[in-house]
């Protein structure tokens, strides 16, 4: 027998990246999964309530590797104690309702969930990919900027992330060729080429969105949550897609007042409901600040529809007035549970026959996403829902 038949070696592995490539494919699948689950993600509480946090965690189910397995909650597992374990000892506790810290999850047998990290902006971009402000018109005064980035030039200096690899290789080969040996290698600083971009600014017509929300006593937890989810995404959408869109926030019960964005999303009120107050205020603000000749105007209103009965006809009149000056009028009614019939306000609105009038009813969290798509479809919106 030989004494030793073993060898030790070391090679260059720097070009080997199979793991990284497959990891990329996994990431891509996560994006696809997010897109498929947008309806659930849009109304995900942890996102709506995450104030200012840039990166959010989206629980993804469809990337689990399904197989036949035992129900982990019912299975007996085995473990090793430190010498004096007894029956009844608690060795671990489940974090409440799945909001555990990362890394802890691996401790429990059979628990395998995946949380994808995405930024709010990325998510917003996916949600509003093909959406925009409907019926946007040319107005006299153009102020609203929309910015696009275009690579326009190639330079010798620049951030490494923008390295133009193809041109750099070409330059390198050229330089080597000049010395008589056309090959790729021995890159010098003078070979490097970078892509340089210029922002191009397109001016568009002005737009103002008037967000009205019912904050009366009849708006329960669910109703407020839905209205906020909708406006949360709407604001984000407008801010990412249009640089200078103005947003006016109005909350109302029996009277309406203009509020700041923060108040709009956080303050609760109570009392009765008189929807017309909000519409009147909206009309007043338009008259004072936003001349329809210069502005595209988009009023939205979310309510549970529990309006004072004698106010409904008045509302119809005011909505018609609003539509004379606005691009669309969006009304969202939040009715928890499908069994409830539409409100008297909705019934009154049903009389309105105008392409500019868009109404949706939301009775479940997952319907926020379709509502967003209906309001912001850039094609001709369908007539109001019966």
């Amino acid at each position, binding site marked *: 027998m030989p004494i030793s038949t073993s060898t030790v070696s070391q090679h260059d592995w720097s070009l080997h990246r199979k793991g990284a490539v497959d990891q990329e494919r996994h990431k891509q*699948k996560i994006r696809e999964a997010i897109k498929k689950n947008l309806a659930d993600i849009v109304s995900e509480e942890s996102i709506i309530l995450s104030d200012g946090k840039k990166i959010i965690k989206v629980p993804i189910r469809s*990337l689990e590797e399904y197989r036949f397995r035992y129900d982990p909650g019912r299975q007996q597992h085995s473990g090793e104690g430190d*010498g004096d374990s007894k029956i009844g000892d608690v060795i671990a506790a489940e974090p409440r309702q799945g909001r555990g810290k990362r890394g802890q999850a691996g401790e429990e047998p059979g628990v395998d969930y995946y949380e994808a990290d995405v930024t709010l902006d990325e998510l917003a971009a996916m949600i509003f990919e093909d959406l925009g402000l409907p019926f946007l018109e040319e107005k006299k005064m153009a102020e609203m900027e929309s910015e696009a980035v275009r690579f326009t030039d190639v330079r010798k200096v620049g951030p490494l992330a923008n390295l133009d690899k193809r041109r750099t290789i070409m330059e390198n080969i050229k330089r080597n060729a000049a010395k008589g040996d056309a090959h790729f290698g021995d890159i010098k600083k003078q070979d490097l080429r970078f892509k340089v971009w210029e922002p191009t600014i397109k001016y568009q017509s002005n737009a103002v969105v008037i967000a009205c929300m019912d904050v009366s006593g009849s708006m329960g937890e669910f109703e407020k949550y839905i209205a906020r989810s909708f406006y949360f995404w709407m604001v984000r959408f407008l801010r990412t897609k249009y640089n200078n869109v103005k947003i006016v926030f109005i909350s109302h019960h029996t009277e309406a007042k203009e509020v700041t964005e923060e108040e709009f999303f956080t303050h609760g009120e109570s009392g009765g409901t008189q929807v017309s107050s909000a519409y009147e205020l909206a009309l007043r603000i338009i008259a004072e600040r936003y001349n329809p000749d210069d502005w595209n105007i988009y009023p939205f209103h979310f309510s549970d529809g529990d309006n004072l009965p004698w106010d409904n006809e008045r509302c119809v009149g005011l909505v018609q007035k609003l539509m004379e000056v606005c691009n669309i009028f969006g009304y969202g009614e939040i009715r928890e549970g499908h069994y409830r019939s539409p409100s008297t306000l909705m019934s009154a609105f049903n009389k309105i026959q105008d392409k500019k009038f868009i109404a949706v009813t939301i009775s479940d969290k997952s319907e926020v996403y379709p509502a967003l798509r209906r309001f912001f479809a850039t094609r001709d919106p369908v007539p109001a829902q019966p």
Partner: protein
Amino acid sequence: MTDLTPDQTYLAELEKAVELIWEIARRAGLDPYPTNFELVPATIMYEFGSYGLPGRFSHWSRGKAYYRMKTEYDYGLSKIYELVVNTNPSYAFLMEQNDLLQNKVVVAHVLGHTDFFKHNTYFKHTGANMIDKVSVNADRIRQYEYDHGTAQVERFLDAVLAIEEHIDPNVHIKRAAERDAGEKDKRKGPRESAYDDLWNLADRDARRAAEEQRERERARKRRRFPAEPEKDLLLFMAQHAPNLEEWQRDILLIVREEMLYFVPQMQTKILNEGWASLWHSRIMREMDLTDGEFTAFAQMHAGVLAPNRMRINPYHLGYKLLEDIERRWDNPTEEERVKLGRQPGMGRQKILEVRETESDVSALRNYLTKDLIEDLDLYLYRKEGDEWVIVEKNWEKVRDGIVASMTNFNYPYITIVDADFNGNTELCLRHQFEGQELDIPYAQRTLEYIHHIWSRPVHLETMMEGTRVRFSYDGQKHGHAKIGDDER
């Protein structure tokens, strides 16, 4: 020596250590395969770890595993020290970033593994050139992606990998049985034509009777395909799935072939790791270590063998089990001497025999004693409400619980019982219920995958809360129904 770079010095020193370790191992009675050690960077280590073998085919689930391993490493949560490929000669991958002492321990550990690979009976049938095979397989799958589209191939791989554990490792025994059965069938063949005579002779009644008889026969035959419940889902589907293309059958067989390579490792995880740990610790103790080196080694050893409340650490259990066997055969009790005729000093010989003939299940059944279970403080626990609570300390029940959890590698035992269910080429699977219920949402999603392969409605029989239930998926929707007593 003065001209060597630090890397070269490291390599040279490691080479010297390997020679020394090899000698110590041989003197101790180990007989490993010749082993090639390759130093690789951490990313490559984690790639091999997540793919199981270098050069294996691509799939996003491996990328997911790779990402998890790499992240855990980056945050210092876990570490792989080595990966050994069971071939002759064996290949072992060591981490470049580890210091010399750590890699010496790893080399000693690896020789334990390659000795185990060479001698343990469960590895008898492992292919000798697995590395070549998996890269050929990966090439073929890449070609299929090129020919049929990446998305198509990925979708099919998703489905096959979902059931990759459901193969039959005892195929070597079964093959022979099949051959015999095949011959028997052939002998039976001509007798069928005996019915033909009836047609000419019989009147209408006899003809009808014969018709019914044949129908019953056909029905019985239908029920009997496969004749015995078939555990190897991959093989069976590769052979009998109605609408597969050649490349799809090939992928089924590739996944199965590669899984067969991993089966012996899964069957002997505790023994194999225990064996390697026992020997790395003994070999290191024979090396000339400074005090500092010895402390570093002891720390590393303790880290690898650290017990875990939530799961059994195979390194620790295997190490303790083998050590205990050796001790008991070195110093038999009075009773063992008299009753079993056990001679003292037979420890080493006994553990060499255990490493040769046992799997985890058999070794735990035979050698996990009351004393050892109490000494290791083993227990069973389960979920009660939001908490995981210890529910069993009785040593026999704990032992049986551990053994049960390793049966079929802790996967539910699923067989194909009827490939012509409803007389309609539908596939019926049965979960051999042994007291533990399936995770139903998972099972339903898995049925969708099986449907993708079989391309006809699929069914799964199992037990839920004491009732026999059949889950079904027809490509559109899921259904489930109680199984009546009249059905078999």
